[in-house]
């Protein structure tokens, strides 16, 4: 009869995988573009101070940030032009720091809690009064490991 012809010689038909790399690249680009580092939108002016004896903050998950600086222009009508504290995405007062630290500490793993570091990111021109208040609040909250966030001093203006 021979009505149904056997197709080619047996064996498996191979799927064309030539487009697979394209798919993977597409994934790669998608993640590259869409990943935003979890960073707060700064509502203050932050010009980093400089130092030479700096250390790296190793584990990001252990670091809590406290931002200090003069509010950006669009917030100046409500918050004034004096240096203010920003915790996460909102302006805060010194009294809020303690509860913020406690809350951050609660969200950490038990084993990591003693290693918690607080990074004070303050504008280079802000007066020490605010910083001193923050330090006192941190002491009360038992967040004793701190780091004054600074840039590496460039050799040029040494």
């Amino acid at each position, binding site marked *: 009869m021979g009505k149904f012809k056997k197709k080619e010689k047996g064996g498996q038909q191979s799927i064309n995988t030539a487009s697979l790399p394209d798919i993977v690249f597409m994934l790669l680009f998608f993640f590259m573009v869409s990943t935003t580092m979890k960073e707060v939108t700064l509502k203050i002016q932050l010009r980093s101070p400089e130092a030479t004896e700096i250390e*790296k903050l190793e584990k990001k998950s252990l670091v809590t940030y406290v931002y200090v600086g003069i509010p950006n222009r669009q917030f100046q009508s409500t918050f004034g032009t004096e240096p203010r504290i920003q915790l996460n995405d909102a302006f805060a007062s010194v009294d809020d720091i303690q509860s913020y630290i406690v809350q951050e500490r609660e969200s950490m793993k038990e084993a990591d809690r003693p290693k918690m*570091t607080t990074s004070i990111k303050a504008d*280079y021109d802000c007066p020490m009064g605010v910083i001193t208040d923050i330090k006192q609040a941190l002491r009360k909250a038992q967040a004793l490991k701190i780091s004054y966030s600074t840039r590496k001093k460039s050799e040029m203006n040494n």
Partner: protein
Amino acid sequence: MAKRAVPEVNAGSMADIAFLLLIFFLMTTTMDTDTGLARLLPPPVPLDQEPPPPLNERNVFVVLLNSKNQLLVEGEQLQISQLKDKVKEFIDNPLELANFSDKKESDDLPYFGIVPISKGVISLQNDRGTQYQAYLTVQNELQAAYSELRDDKARQKFRKAFKDLKPDEQDAIKEIYPQRISEAEPKNVGVQ
């Protein structure tokens, strides 16, 4: 003439290469890490606790920073660039001068044995109006003084830079030059 089949390049491994690249970049990308001056705050003092006995005055190196960012070191007005050498001189006190820090015998340290250790403490006080950058510069100079002392010791003993030493060697040197920077409870210095 026999028809030649166009040879197809096997592109199956392209995916693997792409994955390899993806993983390589995932691993190596470090989000710009934060850097800063690390400090340890003293634990809060309970209200009913008696104040600690005062230290011998020769062992305290007083650094005052006023609201105009001027530096007063041991009663003497200094430029920030001079601070580091002053601190080193005070801590190390190689000539055993009476106005610089006193020494005490250490415990039996690994690598060094019993060595004299400075009892010097640096007391840093600043005004509420001091500029943050000025304060950090002073902190930085103090830290630099300590790291230079440690580095000198490391070169003298191990003929290597401090940062290239093994952790236990580093610890031994840190015992010899403990970093003691005390910050006073906030008060106003030099307000008009």
